[in-house]
């Protein structure tokens, strides 16, 4: 017994050394950035429609497959594919909300929960049906290249991902603040009835918001695919993390989603060091449950 304990202590001590810790933190931050993009879509949808989109994970899986085939069949580099997939998935999301979710749930929260769940099940299993459960990856030439930042070597795709997320967040902020549609979205989020009375087509705005959230997911998929794998279950794994982030940061809060995502990314990275891959995930869920029970409004959000 004693021997094993001291061996564990020794490996724990080595894990804490800067050469391992710093890249872990940085990797966590960059993974967090991609989480942030997924969470952004989710928090946007919640902030405006006031529902938790249970289909978010399945949409991510679908987007990953789309990016995969864009590479395999069309030969598109993922970062180029994003330019194609984002509008495509925006339209898909728009259609989903406008023609399926909205009419089916008729505004009832519980029904919306169930409808998005139903859609999630359909999409996920349709992917399973079409593509089997095999895991696929793509091999882009720069997947394993790293950039030397002096204190650490960071993988190129991850760095690009990190930067892109902030660009997208900035773009979203610009849209929300300066465009008419953005103003309409904010109006509906704040006061739906008033917005309706002012002549805003709420169903259209809901659908636009859902579309934006789905587009975020599509971009996130393109950022993920160089270094991640693709199978129908991936979206599920991500969405639970995304939920955690959104709840932690506060439902409907964009800065909350960004900060929460970075935090979660780092936590996952570090607990992965100590506990191994799968148990690292537990850390996230425990935080999730803890936050829900103790402070459901999260760091920045309004009370649910």
């Amino acid at each position, binding site marked *: 017994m004693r021997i094993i304990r001291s061996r564990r202590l020794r490996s724990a001590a080595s894990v804490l050394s800067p050469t391992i810790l710093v890249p872990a933190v940085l990797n966590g931050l960059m993974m967090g950035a991609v989480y942030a993009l997924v969470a952004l879509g989710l928090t946007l949808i919640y902030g405006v429609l006031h529902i938790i989109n249970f289909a978010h994970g399945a949409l991510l899986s679908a987007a990953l497959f789309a990016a995969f085939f864009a590479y395999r069949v069309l030969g598109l580099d993922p970062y180029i594919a994003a330019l194609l997939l984002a509008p495509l998935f925006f339209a898909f999301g728009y259609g989903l909300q406008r023609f399926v979710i909205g009419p089916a749930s008729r505004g009832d929260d*519980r029904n919306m929960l169930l409808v998005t*769940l*139903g859609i999630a099940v359909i999409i*996920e299993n349709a992917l399973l049906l079409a593509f089997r459960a095999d895991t696929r990856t793509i091999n882009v030439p720069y997947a394993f290249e790293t950039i030397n930042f002096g204190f650490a070597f960071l993988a190129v795709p991850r760095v690009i991902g990190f930067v892109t997320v902030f660009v997208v967040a900035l773009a979203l902020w610009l849209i929300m603040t300066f465009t008419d549609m953005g103003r309409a979205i904010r109006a509906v989020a704040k006061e739906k009835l008033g917005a309706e009375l002012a002549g805003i087509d709420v169903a259209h705005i809901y659908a636009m918001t859902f579309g934006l959230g789905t587009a975020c997911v599509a971009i996130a998929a393109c950022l993920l695919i160089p270094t991640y794998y693709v199978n129908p279950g991936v979206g599920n794994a991500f969405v639970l993390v995304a939920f955690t982030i959104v709840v932690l940061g506060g439902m409907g809060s964009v800065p909350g989603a960004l900060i929460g995502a970075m935090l979660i990314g780092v936590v996952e990275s570090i607990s992965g060091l100590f506990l191994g891959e799968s148990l690292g995930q537990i850390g996230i869920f425990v935080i999730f449950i803890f936050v829900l029970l103790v402070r459901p409004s999260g760091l920045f959000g309004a009370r649910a």
Partner: protein
Amino acid sequence: MKELTPIAAVLTVLAAVPLFVHSNTTLNFLVIALMIALAGQGWNVLGGYGGQYSFGHAAFFGTGAYVTAVLQVRYGINAWLGFVAGIAAGAALGGVIGALTFRSGLRGSYFALVTLAFAEVLRIVASVAPITGAGVGTLMTLELGLHALQFESRAAFYWVILTLVGASLIIVHFIERSRFGVWLVAVRENEDAAQALGVDARKIKTIAMTISGAITAAAGCFYAQYFLFVDSGIAYGTWISIEALLTPIIGGVGTVFGPLLGALVVKSLGEGAKLVTGDVPGLDLIVYGAVLVLVIAFAPRGLIGGLYQAGRYLRRLAVSPTIPLRKVRS
């Protein structure tokens, strides 16, 4: 006692089935359908009558399955005791999760999320913990006999699960007519108004979750006895969370027979889909998802609710389908 006639009639008819049906495939199908009906009835108590939609009922199913399996395999506990222990574990888990989540006042989407999270945590723990066999799972030894709750004939298993389903029907029937049931439905309809009328909403919801956990755990215990193998994906996977909520919603939330009817319909649809297109993986779940969306869109009260709606139009009598009323003499 007279009001138990419908339940008695249904059970009698179902009990007679193995006397006429000998095909193992059909019996297997019915056994699974009844097991899902049982799991769904558990969900129905909390979701249908209580209005709290859990997306993680796998937590109770899996706990029932694992407790039964592990106690028998690792500790040599008798199968019947293991079964009871599994149910008790489900109840305890329901009480704990209920006490925690309802104390925080979580409702609606947040409640769905937290139940999902609990189920996921259990799944991950079960996939790595040595006691559950980690990734390999727990394999139970084949030992036929009543003492071990394992049988050679499918019919015997069928009658076991039918007994459990029958018990759940009777339990829910009595809940409907009890003060607890009236208060539970009131909480579902309007929690604040209910509280103003003296209903301790938190306590009622927690009790509902305890009962719900026990019933769904029983389904899990049965799974272990029937299939003799449990792993984390089977026990705590999203498939059972979805099927447990799907069957009451399709059959009729907040009704005694809803989950049973829903299970038979849903499973039949799944089998039908497989027959038509060949045994493709995931097709039945696609059908389930589509049916869920369609039911919510066009018949949110499920099949039984739809029947009541039709009856209402026909009879022009506006009686709610949730609680049976005795006639008021004017």
